[in-house]
């Protein structure tokens, strides 16, 4: 393998993910606005918000500890890393073997623990409430997530995303019924983990039912900007993981410069469809009570388990 081209691909992809993440959120919000018969703020709005936040003076609570201001950077760093090692444009990235899908889930858990701790740091009622709910959703979503990933990894006998993409994307086209179950479960987990309806509502700021927003209430200016950017990176990383596992066609192989334009076009198309689909799901459903979340994520878990049993019964 050509190491130099691998590194170029790696840098290219990391920068690309970093830059398109806010666009992804903007696109989802715009689609939702259209579905709700509103004109919407435009797809570039998240960039404007980030720019505004980076220019403001930051305010910290009197008793905020170093953990509080360090967390946005840690969060941003781990989410960027997650976006960088998922094969989005090309496989065989030099950093990709650093983490398989299980380690990716671990990375998301790492970020979640830090944001929850930061939510508890100042010691306000909303912060601790948000942290508690976030950890609750987290422990429900994580097993379901791992189960969908296990099901997906059984076909390629590997938890490495690169191998999964190469087995499914570059092999013969075979229809796996187990993957349908896993995909349904994955979408449900994606909604929960990214604070989307029906688990959490990303567009509220002052609701007693808020989760993610409650934890980050005390953040302002550059810290808030990093937290928001990290959240959009997380959404993008989840969507790209879904793309890599369930619709990997079009992803180039490393060193294949000619494949890059095709890969870029395929990625743009997939992200556009995924974003619109996400908006549609959000427009069609209503936010559920917090204690309905176990049922929702339990269903995701069951779907993934069914997928695994289907794999053992039909596909081996």
């Amino acid at each position, binding site marked *: 393998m050509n190491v130099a081209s691998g590194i170029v691909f790696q840098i290219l992809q990391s920068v690309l993910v970093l830059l398109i993440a806010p666009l992804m959120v903007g696109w989802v919000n715009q689609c939702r606005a259209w579905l709700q018969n509103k004109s919407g703020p435009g797809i570039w709005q998240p960039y404007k918000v980030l720019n505004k936040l*980076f*220019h403001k*003076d*930051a*305010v*910290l609570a009197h*008793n905020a*500890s170093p*953990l509080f201001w360090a967390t946005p*950077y840690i969060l*941003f*760093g*781990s989410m*960027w*890393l997650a976006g*960088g090692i998922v094969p989005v444009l090309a496989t065989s990235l030099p*950093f990709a*073997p650093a*983490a398989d899908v*299980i*380690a990716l889930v*671990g990375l998301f*858990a*790492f970020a979640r*623990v830090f944001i*929850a*701790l930061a939510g*508890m*740091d*100042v*010691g*306000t*009622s*909303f*912060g*601790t409430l948000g*942290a*508690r*709910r976030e*950890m*609750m959703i987290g422990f429900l*979503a*994580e*097993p379901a997530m*791992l189960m969908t990933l*296990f099901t997906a990894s*059984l076909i390629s006998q*590997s*938890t*490495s995303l690169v*191998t999964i993409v190469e087995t499914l994307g570059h092999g013969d086209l075979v229809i796996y019924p187990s993957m349908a179950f896993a995909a349904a479960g994955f979408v449900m987990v994606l909604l929960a983990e990214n604070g989307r309806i029906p688990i959490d509502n990303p567009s509220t700021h*002052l609701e007693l039912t808020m989760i993610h927003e409650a934890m980050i209430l*005390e953040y302002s*200016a*550059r810290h808030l900007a990093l937290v928001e950017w990290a959240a959009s990176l997380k959404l993008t990383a989840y969507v790209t993981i879904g793309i890599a596992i369930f619709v990997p066609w079009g992803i180039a192989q490393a060193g294949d410069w000619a494949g890059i334009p095709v890969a870029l076009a395929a990625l743009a198309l997939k992200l556009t469809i995924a974003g619109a689909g996400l908006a549609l799901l959000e427009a069609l459903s209503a936010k559920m009570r*917090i*204690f309905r979340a*176990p049922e929702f994520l339990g269903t995701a878990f069951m779907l993934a*388990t069914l997928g*695994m049993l289907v794999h053992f019964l039909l596909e081996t």
Partner: protein
Amino acid sequence: MMMDVSLPQPVETVVTLAVVWIGLGVAGLAFVRAPRFITHFIFPCGALVALLLAITGLGAIGAPPSVAILPAGLPDLPFHVRVDALSGFFLMLLGGVAFGTSLFSTGYFRGMAPAALALLSLQYHVFLASMTVVLIADDAYLFMVAWEAMALASYFLVTTEHHEEQNRKAGFIYLVVAHIGALGILLCFGVLQGGRGDYTFDALRQAGLGDNWASLAFLLAFLGFGAKAGMLPLHVWLPEAHPAAPSPVSALMSGVMLKTAIYGLVRVVYDLIGNIRWEWGLLVLLVGSATALFGILFALAENDLKRLLAYSSVENIGIVLTGIGLSMVFIGSGQPVAGALGLIAALYHALNHAVYKGLLFLGAGAILKSTTLWNLNQMGGLIRYMPKTAVVFLVGVLAISALPPLNGFVSEWLTFQVSLQASQLSSSVVRSLVPIAAALLALTGALTGMCFVKVYGIAFLGQPRLSLAEAPREAGGWELAGMVWLTIGCVLLGIFPVFVIGELNAVCLSLIGSGLSAEALASGWLWLVPTAGTQASYSPLIFLLAIMVVFGVTFLGVRRLYRGRLRRAAPWDCGFPEQTLRMQDSADAFGQPIRQIFAPLYRIRRQVPRPDDAAPVFRQTVEDWHWYVLYRPIARLTTYLSDQVGKLQQGRISVYLLYSFVTLIALLVFVK
């Protein structure tokens, strides 16, 4: 011992070190009037011995087994000792953790009453020495003697503060369960020797038992060692005994003593019985998964920090048993490579748990000493008073929550990788059960994250929930040194897993004769590869470096590009002006979603006030239902049977003569 040879065998060194430990303990008695001598000299010396033991153990992993016969014991029944790779690994674990706890003790026990301190020092060092002997014993006789010495020494340590009735009760429960376990182990050795009367481990290995006898021996060993390890439903002593003992002792009991039980299980099942069957593995796997899930659920409902840590130890033992169970399933199904991976994952997790749980118990001790608090509901904001303790505790919290790049994640990741080898299995039932066990493990891991966010968020973050007479002080230098040592362990074990895997592979090779695949071992020190590079890989160092680099770049970039000022103000909290300290979550509140979701698994008693109550009080207690469905009925049955037997005891000589007469007649009838 003969120590004037130039290069002593590992076994000789280990025996010498154990003797030195006992000597240090006894020496403490001679200096009852000089408590400073005990804290300033004996505990640091004990720490040094621990360090030497760890180095010897590490050296013994790659070396061939060394054996010796001690000139002690009964006539014609000498003590056999042996240090092989498995013993070496556990000796390293013991020495490594004991070094940290001894350093911590050097500072922690200052100011204790002199007589109590001398006794404590004796029991502490005898405890360490007896655990060492358990790990090197090579015959059932010495093993049981050391095992009992370990139980008794730790019993006295648990009841250090015996003037409180609660601690005496805890000690009693511990002693009872320890002896149920010892009985199981004793019977297991009895079955293994197969009527030939030779109890050396060499003879037991050659026994060649039939299937049924081997299964019986396995069940007895599983019960016996499981009781000591804290396996469900014999875990009840852990949450009682750990809070009662002084914190460094809790660290040793939880970190090391539970691991001697794991050692015993592995030694008996893999080495002495051999010939593992997959049905046994399935049993271990199921019990392990149940133990793990149960342990963490109860940890989440707990608000006493040390009890919480004890329940979390139950959970971690469950994870270790899950790994061992997977390994046995694979070995029993003729897949020794996957089996070796399972054993490596289990042993790695045992080591990791020893290090981070040792650290967390020491941290709990530091909090207890500085604030006199053990209830999480009363803590808060400690990060501002004890910043250094807060940092090392945070590392422990991240490690136990199985987050990359720290050590807890590596062993859980390996356990997941083992369970994903399930498609190699032939039985389709087992093949579908194994991934379910993995899902339970995932649930457990995520719950652990929540549990320790609760611990850290409530104890160290937020605002103080109780105004103490004087502000808590940072832990002293020796205490910090002990904690930092274990913190370094957490980080290094997490970042350089390949070296640990190499050592563990040597253990597997010597124990079951097979290790990891060649490709897994040839992938270099940077990449952790369990089976093959295309299947799965993980590199914690790249992980850590990438996060740190991005952290640094972002931090500097944001600073350089936007020079926005930083202002301090009162917390915003949605503009709500009347914030009080009581509006923060308490530990109980944080666990509320868990209690609601898993309500059927708890035994919850609520005291809810009436609507018109003038001074409403809401009380809630969560209890372990094992007491009610298992232990209380057994206790009642025992009392009942004793009462019945008591009726025979009339206290009149004529009645007793009648008993003798009847017995004689009965014997004559039967023996005839």
